């Protein structure tokens, strides 16, 4: 690594990042797509936290949601369908200095990448995972996803989806080492920003499911909830989010929920008619995989040399060496 003899180091302190410092390519999502709201919230978070763009990596899989890294001016990794989480784990494991975000969709996370999702929660590595859940495959043009409501007419389910949807919140809350689970809806951006902030500061894997609209294929999916604020239940707590007076005027159905109460969180998750919004569960005490596996010594050339030589010693047959010396080893 070279230290450039210019004034760059001195300037670092003065560096101030504006929103446009995080803006990458122009987003090409459909007008009205919930992904736009998530992107805006991400850029605001980076700006508010003044994160150096070179220390941020947005990792994604494949799908509409997974285009997000292209629209950030940070490092981005737009990889394989379903595999965002293991890639993100590999990035984070030996680079604790990097802030890792994962954008994944309901197909990416809950279907093709479901195994990785469950194990990612169990690894509990320090990263923020946002599930863009629009309950349909968009990029491949309207097929039912694992979170699609039963009966959904789609190109692969012309007579209606035959299975009950999988609930990402219940699944996440059921996995060992779960440490942060929250749910938001894309039509209440203020709550989303608040929760994203909590998630970012949470030490461990924070999982946020965003219920978002797909204006192209399922434009009316959330209409009943959007038109009737009483069908939204805010989970309020000082360890989660406390809705502002303005929000509380619209969303009057609120319940005090302590995010340390896992059983109660599971009850809220299985609520059928109302959409709970807020932090379901939060536990900072769960250890992170990268910390559990962090080596206790520096990985230097000298350390490698002495370790390798010691291993060679174990397997070496020495020529013409006095027998006593051999016996002592």
């Amino acid at each position: 690594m070279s230290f450039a003899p210019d004034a760059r180091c001195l300037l670092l302190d003065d560096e101030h990042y504006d929103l446009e410092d995080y803006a990458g390519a122009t987003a090409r999502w459909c007008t009205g797509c919930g992904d736009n709201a998530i992107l805006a919230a991400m850029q605001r978070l980076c700006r508010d936290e003044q994160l150096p763009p070179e220390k941020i990596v947005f990792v994604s899989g494949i799908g509409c949601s997974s285009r997000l890294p292209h629209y950030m001016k940070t490092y981005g990794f737009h990889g394989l369908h379903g595999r965002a989480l293991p890639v993100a784990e590999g990035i984070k494991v030996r680079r604790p200095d990097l802030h890792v975000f994962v954008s994944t969709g309901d197909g990416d996370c809950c279907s093709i990448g479901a195994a990785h999702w469950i194990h990612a929660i169990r690894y509990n590595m320090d990263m923020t995972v946002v599930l863009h859940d629009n309950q349909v495959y968009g990029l491949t043009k309207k097929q039912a996803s694992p979170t699609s409501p039963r009966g959904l007419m789609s190109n692969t389910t012309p007579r209606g989806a035959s299975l009950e949807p999988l609930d990402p919140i219940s699944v996440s809350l059921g996995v060992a080492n779960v440490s942060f689970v929250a749910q938001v809806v894309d039509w209440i951006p203020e709550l989303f920003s608040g929760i994203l902030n909590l998630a970012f500061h949470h030490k461990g894997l924070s999982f946020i499911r965003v219920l978002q609209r797909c204006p192209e294929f399922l434009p009316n999916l959330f209409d009943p909830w959007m038109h009737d604020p009483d069908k939204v239940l805010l989970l309020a707590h000082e360890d989660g989010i406390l809705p502002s007076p303005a929000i509380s005027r619209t969303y009057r159905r609120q319940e005090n929920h302590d995010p340390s109460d896992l059983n109660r969180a599971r009850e809220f998750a299985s609520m059928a008619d109302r959409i709970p919004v807020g932090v379901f569960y939060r536990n900072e005490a769960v250890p992170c995989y990268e910390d559990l596996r962090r080596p206790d010594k520096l990985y230097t050339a000298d350390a490698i040399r002495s370790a390798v030589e010691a291993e060679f010693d174990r397997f070496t047959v020495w020529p013409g060496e006095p027998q006593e010396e051999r016996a002592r080893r």
Partner: protein
Amino acid sequence: MDGRKSKQSPSSRAVDLDQHVVEVISDAGEGAQKCGQSFASIAAAMGNGVWTEEIIPAEIQPPARSTAGASGIRVRIGSGDVCNAGDDADLVVAFNEKVLLGRMDQLAPGCVVLLESRWKEDPDPVIAASYAQTRSGLLEKGYRVYEIPIEAECLKHVGNARRGKNMFVMGLLCRIYGMDPDLARTQVAATFAKKDESVVASNQQLLEAGFDWAEEHLELRFRIPAPAVAEPRLVVNGNTALALGVMASGMEVCAMYPITPATSTSHYLSEAFERMGGMVHQAEDEIAACAFAIGASYAGKCAVTITSGPGYSLKQEGIGLAVMAEIPLVVVNVQRGGPSTGQPTKAEQGDLLSACFGSHGDAPKVVMAASDIEDCFYSVITARRIAETFRTVVVLLSDASLATAQQPFPRPRFSEAWLAPPVDQSPVPPRAQPYDWDDRTGLAERFVPGRPGGMHTLTGLAHDRMGHVAYDPEINEEAIRHRSQKLIAFQKTLKPPRIVGDQEGELLVVGWGSTRGAIEEAAERVRADGRRVGSMHLRFLQPLAPGIKATMQKFERVMTVENNWCDRTTDELVDEDNRRYSNLAWLLRARCLVDVDCWGQLGGRPLKPGAIEQAIRQKLGPERR
């Protein structure tokens, strides 16, 4: 046993030999492999060349006294270097007669059989009859059978002979082959180094009991003279050599999922590599292991993922991504019998073509193969270096026969040049592009996360020099050309492969991977009869080194010898239009436009030099006068 006695009597009766093949066969769990490995280490310490081959049953606890459950080891000992497991066995120790039955076609004429005799008087008449029948069968075939009360002798020293018989047998072998008893005792201490002292002591006692029993009751004495060893040598198997290579290459992360026969590499790494500060990540599946390694490497920590055939298939999508996004990655495939679950513990070289061409689309990557144990070590270091220099995927092929084979090789002298450079975190110059391909070599500098000014989104989609998604087919084609160009540039660094034996003549035998020793030995035997045969072994399979075609043209005929399938021309429906060739033969025919024939065998075990010799002779035909 008495060291002085054995030194005084180097046995004038001892038969001098160039080499001998010893097998120890038992039920699973009776320690035959530990016995053979330790015996091989003693022989190596004596200065002999050795090669071991493990005989592994498919199940963890197969039924006792069964042919399928035979678990054991073959140790070939030679005066000079030994480069393969040899032909038929010259001396076999069997813990019961049943485990021997599956090995009857592996016994050399006049083979010495040391048979555990306790079954002779077994209360179960069926067992006693089976023993008597097998014994007389062996004698009829001219084998020299020695009945040895292994368990009865062990019980004089320990309460449970099941866990001690192996060291008693090692004592027998040490006496028969005139090994230095002090070296043997030391080796027992090393073998049980992790156990407490009482375990070491009782095993040394059993070793001595075996040694003394042979001294008193057996007239068998063989001597395989060894030159004085001049340099320290490592005795490890192929998987441990791979693991040592990972450590010495400066890699930081190994991501894996358990799969036979690759897993023992990760067992060893989990212990030694982690102690050093490296990390073994046991992922939730093969796909995740590959993706994890890609993530670590993308973040500047070059990583390896180690697997075997089925796991390799699962990683193909990830390998394609690493090629497309130009992320360095080393993938080790310790091949086994395939396709599908195939024969997990058996040797086969069937994955060459899927290693070269397995991913969808045009995905150029480097494919190399290790040919012996030493090569397993150095190949990982080379692979890491190529992967990082050329920002590409390097597939390193080993196989089940190297995985568990032990062979001594000169102790490597550690070099810092083996290590990966530290992660570059310097600022990226303004307007630099993340895929600024050099037009001639296809190479471009890599922007690792953390480098100020280098922010870009890497993608598996077609992309331009900025890393932006390319919808334009011309930009896509330019990118494909540059990735292909990297392999061309790399190929320019390779040297023509060496030809062993005749440099021109009647037949060139070409091989790759673990078959090298057997091929060279076979070709040498045929040359001894005056036939003009050369052999060439390929380390790089993709790209192929220069000069291969020119070499082949110096010979009247060319054939590959591989441990994989090829259609037999003697089968009724097989002809030139439909014959499926062995993996390497396909490659060479396509690349060089030379009529390359092939000979292959799927015995599930390393090719024997004798079988190759026969194939060569058949290809050569009668000598022309």
